[in-house]
């Protein structure tokens, strides 16, 4: 065990590993700063490139990215008052007031130290947890795995949104999406819409980007949040460090909370910062100062949100059961480079486990260090106009999605699932729940069947199964008992019961999908059809209370949610979701005629010209740069981009890089 740890330390400190780790850290820092992109979308973008890499290098890169998004997301939280990722929402409360007082640097400095401490502490806990978990792992059979999956799904479902029924139904939708394509027991293609594309199940990268990248980019475009003219950096770098020193026990307690909560599936990054913030208020003096620029309000969430990564890796590495969206994508990355988490990994590939642990620690140190040194430069990133970034980001996500199976189907699937993501965001359906459901669909299908084939009902005589059943029941109870109603339940807030038609239409589309899958499923034999029937019925059951409330409730409630109804913002929003959906549709439609490369180039050109109001020359240069980028990658990865009628029907062979 110690040998493996040392061997991994030697490996990770080799220049080539450090270089890959550093590269991952840089991307992680950037996606952390850009509002709208977090670890999930960042990893999904990286995934196509790790394919075929040496596993240890790919791990260094992925872990590097994953570990630091919650370090750099402090920049927009503190300097602009906009959380860079969902993990630093609580940081805004005291960080932004500090910046307004001219103490931005102090807040950043304390935040980076806290992040680094939390991250390294998380790595430490991870290594201890792996050591103690090894004896248990052989006792985790079909039944235990099944219950772990059930626990993950219920917790994600019930905790990630304001309304538990919506969350559970979103999990169900994820299971349904995961049941499309080849059935695991028989290989029969379920509901393939007559396409070859769904011989395989939907690719994870496509679903991940559609859930987390497209909706966020469109949302930011609509809000046009660019951002202050000048970042409010201020002063106080040394003060921030001393602040942390005098609050080191608070930082430690929050790091412990981060690890524990992170290890529980489902809570993920979205609530940990709030839990830590709440803990800080409860356990310290001078409570009234919180919210007005108290440095402790920065230290607490930042210590916790980096520490959670170590904790979240425990279930991911030991059982292959991810607890958050980004862990789900990371798991996909493991599979891509040939690593199967679980017993085999912790017995035969312990060096890789330690490589991951060291990478987490090192990435946190490098990430925080980079933020310190380059703070003035990095903070300028927050002033870039979003309309300049957005077309490039759209180009990148379509490119990344295309890497999944390298077919037109990827682009179309990304577009269609993105529609789902956009409207789930609008109507308050938790998207992490869908992603976890999607990732776990195969396991649910296999494990439920295998458990009852092997054990029958005697599975409930196994102690670990019973403990997990208890935990699940407890978590359901706790959610029902303690879940807070959101603050704004007024008639003008997003939870209003006015104008329900759009929500009903969305619900109708969900039912249409349920119906299609159900009708398709009942024609198959038992082994093929049972799971989609199960998933559709389950989702319907979860939707029933929601339908009931939607139709009957006369007062605002969490069953209702329409972000378009947020008072005061609808007037300030520029353009509608549909406006940008139309832009993307136009890009795909044009690509169908001229091929993806020219299609995306035209898209970027027009977007820069009309939305960012750049000159013709500059817009052209932007598009050209992206085409060159695609061209270089097509050489490097031996890619052939999707072609259109121009190439197929007219037989035109375009020269590099336009092919």
């Amino acid at each position, binding site marked *: 065990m110690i040998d493996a740890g040392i061997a991994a330390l030697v490996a990770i400190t080799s220049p080539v590993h450090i270089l890959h780790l550093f590269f991952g850290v840089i991307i992680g820092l950037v996606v952390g700063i850009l509002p709208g992109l977090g670890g999930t979308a960042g990893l999904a973008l990286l995934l196509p490139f790790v394919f075929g890499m040496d596993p240890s290098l790919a791990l260094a890169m992925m872990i590097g990215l994953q570990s630091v998004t919650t370090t750099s997301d402090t920049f927009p939280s503190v300097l602009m008052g906009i959380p860079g990722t969902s993990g630093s929402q609580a940081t805004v409360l005291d960080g932004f007031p500090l910046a307004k007082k001219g103490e931005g640097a102090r807040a950043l400095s304390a935040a980076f130290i806290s992040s680094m401490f939390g991250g390294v502490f998380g790595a430490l806990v991870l290594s201890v947890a792996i050591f103690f978990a090894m004896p248990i792992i052989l006792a985790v059979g079909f039944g235990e795995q099944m219950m772990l999956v059930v626990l993950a799904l219920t917790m994600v479902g019930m905790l990630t949104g304001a309304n538990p029924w919506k969350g559970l139904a979103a999990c169900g939708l994820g299971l349904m999406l995961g049941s499309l394509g*080849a059935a695991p027991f028989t*290989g029969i293609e379920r509901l393939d819409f007559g396409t070859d594309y769904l011989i*395989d199940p939907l690719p994870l990268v496509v679903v991940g980007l559609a859930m987390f990248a497209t909706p966020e980019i469109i949302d930011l475009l609509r809000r046009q949040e660019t951002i202050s003219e000048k970042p409010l950096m201020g002063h106080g770098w040394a003060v921030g460090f001393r602040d942390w020193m005098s609050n080191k026990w608070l930082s430690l307690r929050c790091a412990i909370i981060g690890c524990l909560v992170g290890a529980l599936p489902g809570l993920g990054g979205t609530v940990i910062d709030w839990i830590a913030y709440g803990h800080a208020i409860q356990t310290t003096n001078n409570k009234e100062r919180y919210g007005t620029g108290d440095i402790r309000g920065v230290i607490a969430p930042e210590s916790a949100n980096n520490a959670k990564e170590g904790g979240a890796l425990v279930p991911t590495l030991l059982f292959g059961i991810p607890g958050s969206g980004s862990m789900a994508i990371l798991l996909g990355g493991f599979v891509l480079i040939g690593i199967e988490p679980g017993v085999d990994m912790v017995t035969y590939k312990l060096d890789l486990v330690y490589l991951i642990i060291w990478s987490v620690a090192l990435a946190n140190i490098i990430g925080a260090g980079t933020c310190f040194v380059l703070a003035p430069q990095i903070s300028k990133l927050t002033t870039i106009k979003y309309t300049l970034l957005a077309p490039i980001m759209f180009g990148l996500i379509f490119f990344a999605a295309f890497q999944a199976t390298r077919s037109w189907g990827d682009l179309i699937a990304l577009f269609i699932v993105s529609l789902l993501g956009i409207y789930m965001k609008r109507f308050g359906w938790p998207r992490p729940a869908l992603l976890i459901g999607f990732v776990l669909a195969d396991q649910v299908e296999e494990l439920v069947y*295998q458990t009852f*084939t*092997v054990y029958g009902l005697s599975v409930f005589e196994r102690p670990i199964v019973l403990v997990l059943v208890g935990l699940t029941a407890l978590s359901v109870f706790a959610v029902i008992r303690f879940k807070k109603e959101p603050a704004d339940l007024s008639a003008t807030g997003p939870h209003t019961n006015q104008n329900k038609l759009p929500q009903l239409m969305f619900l109708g589309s969900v039912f249409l999908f349920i119906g299609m899958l159900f009708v398709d499923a009942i024609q198959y*034999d038992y082994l093929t059809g049972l799971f989609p029937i199960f998933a559709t019925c389950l989702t319907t059951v979860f939707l029933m209370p929601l339908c009931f409330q939607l139709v009957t409730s006369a007062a605002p409630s969490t069953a209702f949610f329409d972000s378009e109804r947020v008072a005061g913002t609808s007037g300030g929003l520029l353009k509608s979701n549909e406006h940008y959906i139309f832009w993307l549709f136009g890009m795909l439609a044009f690509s169908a005629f001229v091929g993806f490369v020219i299609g995306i180039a035209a898209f970027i050109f027009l977007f820069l010209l009309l939305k960012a109001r750049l000159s013709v020359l500059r817009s052209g240069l932007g598009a050209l740069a992206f085409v060159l980028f695609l061209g270089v990658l097509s050489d490097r990865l031996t890619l052939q981009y999707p072609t259109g009628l121009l190439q197929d029907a007219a037989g035109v062979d375009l020269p590099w890089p336009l092919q």
Partner: protein
Amino acid sequence: MIFGNPAKVMLTAAAGLLVSIVAVLPASAVDFSGKKITIITPFKEGGGTDGLARLFAPYLQKELPGNPDVIVLNQPGGGGVTGSNKFQRTDVKDGTVLGMGSTSTFVAYAIGGDKVKYDPMSWEPIILMLRGAIVYANSDKMGLKGGLNDPKGDVAIAQSKPVVIGMKTPTSAELSDYISWRIIGANVKPVFGLSTSKQRKAYFRQEIMANVDGTGPYLKKVVGKSDFNTVPMFSFGYDGPDGNRLRDPDAPELPTMEEFYQAAFGKAPKGPAYDAYRNITGLRVMSKLIALPPGTPKEVVDTYIAAMKRIAEDPKAAKAIKKTVGSLPVYYGEAAKPIMAGGFKIKPSARDWMAKELGEKFNVKM
């Protein structure tokens, strides 16, 4: 005047030499410099086929002209059918796409079905490797003795206690495991949805009671690795020149199923069930194929065969290959085709028996 300038003479001679060197080289020399070679593996990471592809990848990189990058692309799904369909459809014929064939894909092809849109006989084989397999069981839970220790008693146990085994799908390669227990009249209870690596894990957790592994993986990953007593029952062996099953050279002390049957029942196995056993275990032993897509030019195929033969002579590679596939025969290029053709020919009696068995037991149409 003609030889006036010595420098010019030298230059002309050098140019002439260069031209003649270029002329001697074959016009279509295969060169993969700067290319990326993708080995399509129709299974998830971690299985035997994936392991073999990953074992060969660095050696191919070393031995192929131009030292291209060689990567393994896993295309799991449908018990190997999805990835094999994809390989069959590929229109890259320049040698930059390879496919892995394995028992699972062969069984699916031989049994047929509308999902199977590939034909391994149309592929260009580079190397076909046979691999023995061993049936083993949890003797603590089952009370089996294994081998020729007490065949009559073992048969009595297997007929009374359920023999829980893992299978990927009803028509996957583990059909050979199923049939080998059925043929001695055992009460087999398969659990579907388990890949080879998951079967082994479930076996170690004592959730399935018996399993089959390739002889190499069995010796390396099973013997002495369980917390309980594991006994080998019998081996599938391999077809000798006279058509009889011979003992596995890597486990010579273990009887073949035929010997076990003879000792237990006092007669040689016969009939449609045995035909099915011979067919399906034959496919199982015909274990791993590395092939180029149909229509690949001959010089590309020959380049690969030459590279593969050099790899087989590399002592380090040979040792690793022996560890994975054992010491059964290996066939290169065209020599593999008759072996494959023999394996794919399923006797009608065997097909009928399997169709009936799968239909009655699992409601699966063949």
